[in-house]
């Protein structure tokens, strides 16, 4: 069965126009046909594998020399799970258009240096995220370029994710998208598509923003089907539709296949996800390492990754570009210390401690540099992180070129309290933790800029401040 881009259910908001069908999607398959295809798939996979990678040993009644293929699990994702993917359309640009009605209908981009987000009006001129602003101006001279309001975007996102949580017990959030696990909520919310339509209406009513919703049997399919109906779309795909839906899609649409993997696959004349299925798991593992086995499953529509609130983030990063490129060491040190203290505060709020600190630099000639260091012991206090960051900066900042941007990344987290404390410094560690908890409370109440220490004091009076701290040129927050 093809992806089922559906018209909005009865009572849907007018904004929920009927989802556009995927033009390349084949006609619905007859129920049961999938298993026939699957055995064919298995055979072709075996043939492909027989000549390349070693196949499993023949067993049972198989004759020596026969190729025996272990029965593959059904080519379909588990039918029980229901995952809703919510993607905010042209997030930053859409908010800017809400904030100032004069921007409605005009091409708007948000970014500094490169495009971070562009409205659909701007996309008609070929503008895309990641494109340089100079190129954007050439392509669309009337484009409105805005530096952006990171804190405002965060507030809107939290509002939307809060609405998602009223529909789902498990919501996994990112900057402008969320996965909601609707499994087992049918008696509460009705069918998933209806629930998604209601969620869209509520988000539109509360924020004035449109979102695209995809409903599927797993995260990957929910996101992919949503992509076919952007913007302001709503579509559902059933487990039985997965195979045909994926077959004709380009390999780079598969989650986990980036530019480099797609290039490798294309060099092997593998252009579509269907063609990718001919590659045995061993071959994909040899090509891409451990993720290769994951791709083997995903190209068959199988994705068992759960939806869960990320209690422990992969990384916490704080980055910004300078208001003007600088080689002044005091300014660079001050900014790095400030970013480190912001990241440490976030780390403490999440109740985790980091083992690894990394510093990223971007020179004015666009050259980048990054280096990381493992801390002697996992820590969440500012001094340990700042000391490591300063050492990394000293080792990294070696060129006689001004810096355009600086960033700090904390990673390799463990829950706070899960690390072994020092035997003789327990009292001191407790006092220090209490001190930083007190700092965080003060900063929470009066803004981060009210308490800055060390070299970050250099920024006082040089940068504007608001309730959140210094106003950075291009603050970038990543969980």
């Amino acid at each position: 069965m093809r992806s089922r881009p559906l018209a909005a259910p009865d009572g849907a908001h007018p904004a929920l126009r009927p989802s556009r069908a995927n033009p390349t999607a084949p006609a619905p398959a007859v129920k049961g046909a999938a298993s026939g295809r699957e055995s064919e798939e298995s055979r072709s996979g075996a043939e492909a594998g027989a000549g390349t990678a070693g196949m499993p040993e023949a067993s049972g009644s198989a004759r020596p020399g026969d190729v025996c293929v272990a029965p593959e699990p059904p080519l379909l994702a588990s039918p029980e799970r229901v995952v809703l993917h919510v993607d905010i359309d042209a997030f930053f640009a859409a908010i800017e258009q809400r904030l100032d009605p004069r921007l409605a209908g005009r091409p708007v981009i948000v970014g500094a240096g490169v495009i971070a987000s562009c409205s659909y009006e701007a996309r008609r001129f070929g503008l895309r995220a990641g494109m340089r602003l100079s190129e954007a101006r050439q392509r669309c001279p009337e484009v409105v370029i805005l530096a952006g309001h990171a804190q405002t975007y965060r507030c809107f996102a939290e509002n939307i994710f809060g609405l998602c949580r009223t529909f789902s017990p498990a919501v996994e959030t990112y900057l402008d998208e969320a996965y909601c696990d609707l499994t087992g909520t049918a008696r509460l919310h009705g069918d998933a598509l209806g629930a998604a339509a209601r969620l869209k209406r509520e988000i539109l009513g509360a924020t004035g923003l449109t979102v695209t919703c995809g409903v599927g049997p797993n995260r990957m399919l929910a996101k992919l089907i949503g992509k076919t109906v952007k913007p302001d779309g709503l579509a559902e795909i059933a487990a039985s539709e997965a195979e045909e839906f994926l077959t004709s899609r380009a390999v780079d649409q598969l989650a986990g296949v980036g530019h480099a993997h797609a290039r490798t696959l294309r060099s092997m004349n593998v252009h579509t996800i269907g063609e990718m299925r001919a590659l045995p798991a061993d071959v994909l593992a040899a090509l891409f390492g451990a993720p290769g086995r994951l791709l083997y499953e995903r190209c068959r529509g199988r994705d068992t990754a759960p939806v869960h609130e990320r209690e422990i983030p992969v990384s916490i990063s704080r980055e910004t570009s300078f208001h003007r490129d600088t080689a002044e060491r005091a300014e660079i040190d001050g900014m790095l210390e400030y970013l480190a203290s912001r990241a440490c505060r976030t780390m403490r709020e999440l109740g985790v401690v980091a083992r690894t600190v990394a510093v990223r630099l971007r020179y004015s000639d666009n050259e980048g540099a990054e280096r990381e260091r493992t801390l002697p012991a996992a820590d969440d206090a500012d001094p340990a992180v700042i000391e490591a960051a300063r050492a990394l900066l000293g080792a990294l900042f070696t060129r006689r070129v001004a810096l355009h941007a600086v960033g700090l990344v904390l990673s390799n987290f463990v829950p706070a309290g899960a690390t072994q404390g020092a035997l003789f410094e327990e009292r001191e560690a407790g006092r220090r933790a209490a001190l930083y908890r007190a700092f965080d409370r003060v900063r929470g109440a009066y803004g981060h800029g009210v308490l800055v220490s060390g070299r970050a004091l250099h920024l006082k009076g040089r940068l504007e401040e608001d309730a959140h701290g210094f106003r950075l040129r291009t603050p970038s927050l990543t969980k």
Partner: protein
Amino acid sequence: MRSELLDEAVTVRADFQGGVVTPLAFRRRGREHRVVRVNARWIDRVPRHPHFFFSVTDESGDTYQLQLQGGDLLWWLDAVMLET
């Protein structure tokens, strides 16, 4: 289009009916600006007391950002959006 920071405490006439705050007019430099449209509203819940933000358009067509601080119930005129 750019926003110019103002960061001024202002007097605001607002409607609090139904548990929803809606600014109706604000006074700046002796002149009353009547709010003809609330373009967007959002809440920052990170501070200890929430901050309520409003993007409003006055009768002259200018767009401003107002903020009500939940703790002390002070109104601030954060910024004005300017055509460049």
